[in-house]
């Protein structure tokens, strides 16, 4: 350890203040702090500090994503070989998926971190760790066959327009990963929806249908899956969103470590369930629904990107509501809207992306009204006081 430390200190010398590479300090520091928690000591304020830091928080999210990612890699291969009618083992399917997905992750990290480094150097601050999560999320929510250059473009759009334009990490209004997906969705719709994108190399096989469940429902075709498939995730879909089981494993880690706010996750599912129940009740109210509205409410919770979105994207603390009460409202509305968009608007077979982005925009408003309650209390107290003395 001390050997690596010494080597690092040597490498860092030309980057010290006053030397010619000083400008590039944030870049070398990012590498250094990845290996070592730095020797910085408290200079003002409290003299002792908690062990937690942003890196630890972000890595916890990455850990929570791992089960869904591994499952996604396997499922990609599994769906591919199933279409071809071939029976293959776990490893073969996994390797097929990994060959598709790892390059996407590499591209996402390389492009995104590249921009982050440039901005850190330009603005003279340290590289923030937020992109560790965003960079992994972006490939996980894309269809598997999307070309790598589209991934790269989406990342550039998300980081530049979604984040840096607002001032960087902590200042963005929209969730960057969803911004990337929304960009790809609207810029290249043929690669992001339809029945040929969800299973790897689906177009190569004749007469196959790689349609997602929600797509089938919207098209009115039969759904050949049981609830248990939808829950475990052996279904076509974006790379890592199919397995509700793996997502819940991640959710458990996030909630136990309090990295994600459980309020948003719980209220998000409640909202989705409520809307599902309401739609299921339509026939008994005399309104004839369609396949989507009649789809059992509990199935709504486990298909599509809903679970993934609520657990990993809605809980992004920067773009979510920040007050405790606000988080309940924010989560609930995301759930409600996601199912509403999904069922009532046939152009968008999945609504979670749009519903989260929409609520991202409204989160500051929700917070404003929650905080305003506190402000009013204070003003009332002052008023009561002035009336008494007057």
């Amino acid at each position, binding site marked *: 350890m001390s050997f690596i430390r010494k080597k690092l200190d040597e490498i860092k010398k030309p980057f010290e203040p006053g030397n010619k590479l000083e400008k590039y300090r944030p870049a070398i520091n990012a590498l250094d702090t990845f290996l*070592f928690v730095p020797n910085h*000591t408290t200079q003002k304020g409290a003299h*002792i500090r*908690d062990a*937690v830091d942003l890196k630890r*928080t972000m890595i916890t999210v990455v850990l929570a994503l791992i089960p869904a990612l591994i499952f996604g890699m396997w499922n990609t291969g599994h769906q591919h070989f199933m279409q071809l009618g071939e029976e293959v083992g776990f490893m073969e399917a996994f390797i097929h998926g990994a060959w598709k997905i790892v390059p996407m992750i590499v591209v996402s990290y390389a492009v995104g971190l590249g921009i982050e480094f440039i901005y850190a150097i330009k603005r003279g601050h340290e590289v923030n760790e937020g992109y560790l999560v965003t960079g992994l999320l972006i490939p996980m929510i894309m269809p598997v066959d999307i070309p790598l250059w589209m991934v790269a473009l989406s990342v550039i759009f998300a980081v530049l327009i979604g984040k840096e334009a607002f001032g960087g990490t902590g200042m963005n209004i929209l969730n960057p990963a969803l911004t990337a997906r929304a960009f790809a969705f609207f810029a290249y719709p043929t690669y992001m929806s339809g029945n040929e994108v969800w299973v790897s190399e689906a177009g190569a096989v004749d007469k196959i249908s790689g349609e997602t469940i929600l797509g089938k429902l919207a098209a009115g075709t039969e759904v050949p899956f049981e609830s248990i498939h939808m829950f475990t995730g052996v279904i076509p879909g974006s790379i890592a969103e199919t397995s509700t089981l793996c997502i819940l494993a991640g959710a458990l880690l996030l909630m136990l470590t309090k990295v994600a706010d459980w309020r948003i996750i719980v209220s998000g599912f409640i909202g989705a369930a409520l809307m599902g129940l309401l739609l299921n009740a339509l026939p008994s109210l005399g309104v004839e629904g369609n396949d989507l509205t009649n789809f059992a409410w509990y199935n709504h919770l486990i298909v599509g990107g809903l679970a993934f979105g609520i657990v990993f994207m809605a809980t992004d*603390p920067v773009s979510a509501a920040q007050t405790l009460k606000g988080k309940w409202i924010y989560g609930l509305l995301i759930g409600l809207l996601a199912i509403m968009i999904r069922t009532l608007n046939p152009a968008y077979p999945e609504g979670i992306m749009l519903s989260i982005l929409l609520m991202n925009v409204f989160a500051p408003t929700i917070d404003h009204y929650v905080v305003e309650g506190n402000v009013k209390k204070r003003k009332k107290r002052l008023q009561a006081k002035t009336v008494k003395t007057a």
Partner: protein
Amino acid sequence: MPKSVKVKRGLSLNLKGEAEKILVDAPKSKIYTIKPPNFHSIVPKMVVKEGAKLKAGDELFFSKYSDKTRFVSPVSGTLKEIVRGAKRRVLELRIEADASIDYKDFGVMDPLSASKEEVKERVFSTGLGTFIQQRPYDILANAEDTPKSIFVSTHNTAPLGASFEFVLKAKMKHFQTGLNVLSQLTEGKVYVGVDAESASELKSVENVEVVNINGPHPAGLVGTMIHEIEPINQGERVWTVRAEDVAIIGEQFTTGKFNAERIVAVAGNAAEERKYFKTLIGAEVKTLLSGQNPAGCRLISGDVLTGAKVEEEGYIDYYANELTIIPEGNHYRMFGWLPFKDNNIHSMSKTSLSWLFPKRKYDVDTNLNGEERALVVTGEMEEVMPLDIYPMQLIKACMAGDIEKMENLGIYEVAPEDFALIDYTNTSKIEAQEIIRQGLDLMITEVG
């Protein structure tokens, strides 16, 4: 039915190195120092010159903007040196002490039979006003004001904090007199916070309202008590006095002498002799070290959350009744950011397993355990903020210098120390206390 303050959101840090409840006399300090920067926003106007002979209680300086509050010498001796910094700002007044202390006689006064005006005049003109702080703004009280109430806390919930119960044991009579003095300074009440769980005689003090305090830090801070009992509205003034200083005020009224005695708890996991030392305000730090070589240690005048760094050759701050010694943390930890690693470092976050051992006492050092980052995580500040205030929103308003927002969000009710735990726990390592202090300073210049 006595009033009580019950705090749920907070954190009592269990640290190693508590001071043993043994009282010893510290070796006599050669020099005693008054540091004007200890009195926030006071610009001293000197009354005496270098070389002046002083008695304990003789005036040293007064505030340039309010000549009512006088600052006096804690010992008798010679004003040896006035240390000045940039722009001739007075940093330290070093007084070489005589072999035995010669006191200025202020005469005896019974605070309860004297008139309110007489008591107030005496408090501020004889240097006792320096022990009274005002909220809002957390600055010295203005002698022109009459506060709506006065708050004293005798329950120190800060990590490794000195026990006022122990410190005041031999000074109960003076403490009561001091409270009598305070009761003459306000139209309202004097509130004294006591540990709800202790059976100390502090609970039987008179002429004041006793408040039982329950719960983790910051339950024992006056800010918490004020917020629960009489929250400050715009335009109101509330005063606070530290418990040991109440006894100094009382003693001066009883004996006529300004006895600046300070019982300093030496604590911290790097301290060798952890005891309570009897000394005087402004004593040399090295007289409290019992010969310990503090190389590689941080010496803190005050507690680990709110204290100020001092050097071995430095002096104890005016209000400090603790000297905390902890190791400096200028070391690297390989992959220390991995979740569930290094669980021997305390963390409020569940990304460390330290929460599995709630009884464990922790070693601490001054490592920042990370680097400063943008504010990302939400909801964590609220967990250590018992006041009905949105801490992150207030901090952001202070950073933006948005006065109206700061007012709305409750800037008048807070002091930097109320945000000390946020310094400690927040993931982004932002300096909440400093930001709040700057916010308060902005309010002083803009609103006053």
